[in-house]
């Protein structure tokens, strides 16, 4: 399980490392940068361009991450490229990141990774990580100092080798009504030990129907106090020990960093790996997860929270941007009409032309844009070389490179226009629509899995290959067919998929409409109603169990579940002729997973057998009896392996009674016969039968039906016993 301690290609030349030499040999600080988000939240844009290259305030996102890593003292970065890997590598090469003197950037390319888990497994195989490393995705903006967090991590690691990861978190109030943070991420519940900062519980993507946070009692047994947080945000900056990579390799089903890896580590107490948190207070760290966080982080950058990651300091490729008063940033060679009004907190890119009486506020305009007269732009992100003709109205939209808006076109809030789209004159693009030259991928299996399968393999390669031709070819090919975007419009308006109609405002660039919030406030009240309705409060003052969460219900359903599973297993064994040993093995694993007793297994197996006997076609009671005999003789071993004790045998008799009650017509007449058979086959001993009778002696008459039925047999047993004596 240890870390790969061998010396790798470009690393230090260490062969065997001891504790002491760890301190003596300086290990360069390494980082893994995932240049793929492994999700589809930025579609349709990400169909054509990798997410990390999307301009964030006119600078491709990956620059923010790399700049931060460099400033934080990281010397060795492995950029993992998957979707559009060629574009990423080309960009890094062109922009000079690959040839920095003291900052080595190495790209790792993969075409078949569909998740962060796959990426880390691949990196483990490459054997390039030798010490603690920073795990970050290429869409993170931060200005935090790593020194303290790293020192804490190292200190902990020295004391406890199981402290494998330190997560960076930040305070951020989540709106309780709409259950999401200002970054548009889902609310996050955490439990942290306030003294050690150990993370004990992590719950994102909450099931809103459950109003109760359930923490294992063992947490409190070990810690005198713990704090529960709802006001923290995960920055997705992780300081990891090398073990993390091997953990991903060992658990090949880990895909998602949080959902699988963190959850897995927290739940699994066998290996005892621990995760800790480091909270930053005055520094900035955010990940761009969706369009809303794109909007929020852009604003934070413009408002200089991320200093030094601000437009007038970050200069990549374009010419200098100057900060003017009221938070206006202007690049050079801007030609602006006298009558145009540029509001505060606006960024204008190099070579942009702005016509008469145009009003722009709270927006980012890229380089080389041509904006006509009487245009209104509010809260928009307009990328490079966009043409906006006269009289357009844009409200909280993202407009990608080389888009053309014909005169009078209107973009309602939340619109995303992907590359080279043309919107016809006077055309109104409805709110929250996604428009792209590419058709919406149809295979859209609304399965969880899709989260990771970023269409990369299929679409990417196509786009990559036909990068250049596509541009000229596509519009011609489609120009006739597309009337979706008005006269001369080019592009497809994507259908809203998987009923996101309701939720589209959540992750959109547009601010949340007030009516949605008040609506959410109302439902919040209903939530409360669900969780504590005083009238049905049990007198003991215990929390009302949620109908689907109650202990008893759980027990019941688990009981059911277990029996059903055993039955299914048994049927499969019968149908596929599986060996008894294997059946026993499977039932045993079910027993462990459901936390059952051997007696439960005996009962369930017996139940499955009888069920099978009934379900096998038979004409008469005799036929049924024959079935029972067959099944018992064939699978006797499976049953007897659970009958080590008299209690388990009694359990079988009780179960049998239950079966007889359930299907009175079928089994009830055969009760004594089958009991006798069980006795003869040595499945049940006479002690069990006698103590069963004993147990039933004080029961209600109703319960004694079967005891009375078997009275004759029991008498016979008793007599036989006496004779024996």
């Amino acid at each position, binding site marked *: 399980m240890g870390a790969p301690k061998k010396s790798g290609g470009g690393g230090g030349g260490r062969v065997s490392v001891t504790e002491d030499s760890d301190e003596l040999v300086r290990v360069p600080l390494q980082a893994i940068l995932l240049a793929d988000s492994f999700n589809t939240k930025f579609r349709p844009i990400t169909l054509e361009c990798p997410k990390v290259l999307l301009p964030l305030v006119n600078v491709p996102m990956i620059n923010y991450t790399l700049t931060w890593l460099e400033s934080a003292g990281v010397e060795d970065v492995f950029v993992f490229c998957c979707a559009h890997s060629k574009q990423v590598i080309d960009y890094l090469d062109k922009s000079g990141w690959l040839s920095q003197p003291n900052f080595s950037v190495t790209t790792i390319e993969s075409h078949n990774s569909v998740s962060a888990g796959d990426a880390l497994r691949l990196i483990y195989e490459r054997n390039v990580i030798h010490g603690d490393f920073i795990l970050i995705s290429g869409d993170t903006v931060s200005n935090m100092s790593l020194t303290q967090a790293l020192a804490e991590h190292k200190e902990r690691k020295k004391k406890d080798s199981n402290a494998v990861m330190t997560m960076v978190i930040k305070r951020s109030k989540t709106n*309780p009504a709409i259950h999401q943070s200002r970054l548009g991420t889902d609310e996050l519940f955490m439990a942290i030990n306030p003294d050690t900062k150990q993370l004990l519980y992590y719950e994102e993507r909450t099931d809103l129907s459950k*109003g*109760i946070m359930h923490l294992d009692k063992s947490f409190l047994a070990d810690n*005198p106090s713990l704090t529960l947080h709802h006001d923290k945000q995960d920055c997705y900056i992780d300081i990891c020990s090398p073990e993390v990579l091997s953990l991903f390799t060992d658990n090949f089903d880990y895909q998602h960093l949080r959902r699988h890896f963190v959850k897995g580590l927290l739940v699994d107490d066998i290996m005892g790996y621990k995760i800790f948190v480091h909270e930053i207070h005055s520094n900035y760290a955010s990940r761009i997860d969706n369009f809303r966080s794109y909007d929020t982080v852009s604003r934070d950058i413009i408002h200089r929270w991320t200093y030094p990651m601000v437009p007038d300091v970050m200069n990549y490729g374009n010419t200098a941007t100057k900060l003017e008063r009221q938070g206006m940033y202007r690049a050079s060679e801007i030609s602006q009409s006298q009558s145009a009004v540029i509001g505060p907190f606006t960024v204008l890119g190099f070579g942009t032309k702005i016509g008469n009486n145009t009003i722009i506020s709270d927006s980012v305009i890229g380089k080389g844009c041509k904006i006509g007269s009487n245009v209104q732009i509010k809260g928009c992100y307009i990328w490079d070389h966009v043409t906006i003709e006269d009289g357009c109205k844009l409200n909280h939209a993202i407009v990608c490179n080389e888009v053309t808006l014909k005169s009078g076109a209107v973009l309602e809030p939340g619109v995303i226009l992907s590359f080279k789209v043309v919107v016809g004159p006077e055309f109104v693009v409805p709110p929250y629509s996604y428009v792209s030259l590419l058709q919406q991928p149809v295979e859209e299996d609304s399965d969880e899995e899709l989260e990771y399968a970023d269409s990369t393999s299929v679409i990417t390669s196509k786009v990559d290959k036909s990068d250049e031709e596509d541009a000229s070819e596509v519009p011609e090919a489609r120009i006739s067919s597309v009337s979706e975007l008005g006269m001369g419009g080019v592009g497809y308006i994507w259908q809203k998929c998987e009923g996101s109609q309701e939720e589209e405002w959540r992750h959109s660039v547009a601010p949340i409409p007030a009516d949605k919030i008040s609506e959410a406030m109302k439902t919040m009240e209903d939530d409360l109603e669900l969780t504590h309705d005083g009238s049905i409060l049990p007198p003991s003052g215990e929390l009302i169990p949620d109908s689907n969460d109650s202990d008893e219900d759980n027990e019941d359903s688990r009981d059911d579940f277990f029996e059903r599973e055993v039955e299914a297993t048994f049927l499969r064994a019968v149908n596929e002729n599986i060996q008894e040993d294997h059946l026993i093995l499977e039932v045993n694993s079910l027993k462990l997973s459901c936390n059952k007793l051997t007696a439960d297994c005996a009962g369930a197996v017996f139940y499955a057998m009888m069920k099978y006997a009934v379900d096998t076609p038979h004409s008469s009671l005799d036929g049924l009896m024959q079935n029972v005999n067959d099944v018992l003789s064939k699978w006797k071993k499976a049953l007897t392996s659970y009958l080590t004790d008299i209690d388990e045998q009694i359990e079988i008799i009780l179960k049998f009674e239950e079966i007889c009650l359930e299907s009175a017509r079928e089994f009830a007449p055969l009760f004594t016969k089958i009991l006798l058979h069980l006795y003869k086959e040595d499945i049940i001993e006479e002690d069990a039968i006698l103590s069963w009778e004993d147990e039933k002696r004080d029961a209600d008459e109703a319960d004694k039906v079967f005891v009375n039925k078997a009275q004759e047999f029991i008498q016979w047993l008793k007599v036989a016993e006496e004779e024996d004596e």
Partner: protein
Amino acid sequence: MDFQVVVLAGGVSKKLLPLVSKEIPNALLPVANRPVISYVLELLELSNLKDLIVVVEGEDAALNVGGWISAAYADRLHVEVAAVPEDVGTAGAIRAIAHHLTAKDILVVSGDLVSDVPLGAVAATHRRHDAVVTAMLCSAPVSGPSESGSSGGKDKTKKPGRYNLIGLDPTQQFLLHIATGAEVEKDLRVQKSILRAAGEIEIRADLMDAHLYAFKRSILQEVLDQKGTFHSLKHDVLPYLVRSQLKSEALLNGVAQVEENGTEKIIAQSNQQMLSQILANASERTFHQRYALSPNGTSFRKTHKCCVYIAGSNRYCARLNSIQAYSDINRDVIGEANHLSGYSFSAQNNIIHPSAELGAKTTVGPHCMLGEGSQMGDKCSVKRSVIGRHCRIGANVKVVNSIVMNHVTIGDGCSIQGSVICSNVQLQERAVLKDCQVGAGFVVAAGSECKGEVLAKK
């Protein structure tokens, strides 16, 4: 003073047998030679809370308690003693005396509390937040509650006992979660709605609910009326109020809702209350208010506040609810927390009544107390023990870590360790007791040796 105080003095607790009886109910059990209830009464008097109702379970016990109180506090406190049937629970006791309650706020305190926490501060906290309930919390005692009472202070290595789980907001003013009784050992279940509103909850296992609460009377009575099944304040009423704090049903029932068009038909009382809430924290709203307010500033959700007063760690706070606790409290009151006893200690750090007589070579160590008129023979030794009034103790007797009540006769050569000897007990010569409780009037035969036993008349 518009705080009315209810002292729940209990009756004859099974947990304290054989120390208590109808003649000496829980409330009159002597701690450092004065009834335990006097500690609460004096604490109340110090805070100028003089309008009290003492609730006792059982008529006989009530008579005895009432008799003692009227003798001792006749001119100092205005005390009413009410008898309630046995086993009605704390909630039932309040229900039974509801007609006596008139003040705006009620302070409910357990009669077995021995503490020096200023109750005025608890009342002030309650008033400041205009809370529905304010609970006093203190650090959990280190030695766990002993069920049998036979483990004479041996388990000092034990972890702090877990009495309840308390969830507090970051400012440690509000009670956001409480798990008591059997829930403590179960998995922790926290309401997400409260966590969402508060942002952060700190769960503490090292605090103990001292069973001292300030309630808003109207709401307490409303809850008690509506929830007929509530039996205990601690296990039912308090958790209920905590859980429903963001959706206050108690308040909603008597109050008309705010109408859509803004015509407010709120009963004067609650209107005033909202106003006072807003005024009280004008600078920074607490999460209750933020939660109650919609974005446009109108309040459309009723919340109420459950507050806590956390006693400083230098304060003493203990409840006499087990025999172990009885021994501990006695030891503390004449030892570490001797300011509670109300006596002045001698230079040897002990109290020997002037009328007590000591034989030759008899030593009474520090942290000891010898009551009025008691006599000790020669060569006795007393360590960390309380000896009551008019006891006759022979020669060569050793008393260590024990409590001896009044009128006890101890023969020569006895040895008593870690035990409680009730009044009128007779210990004949050379009896050896270790970790025993001897009920009132019992006679221990000469030469008998007992360890960890309960000796009482049948």
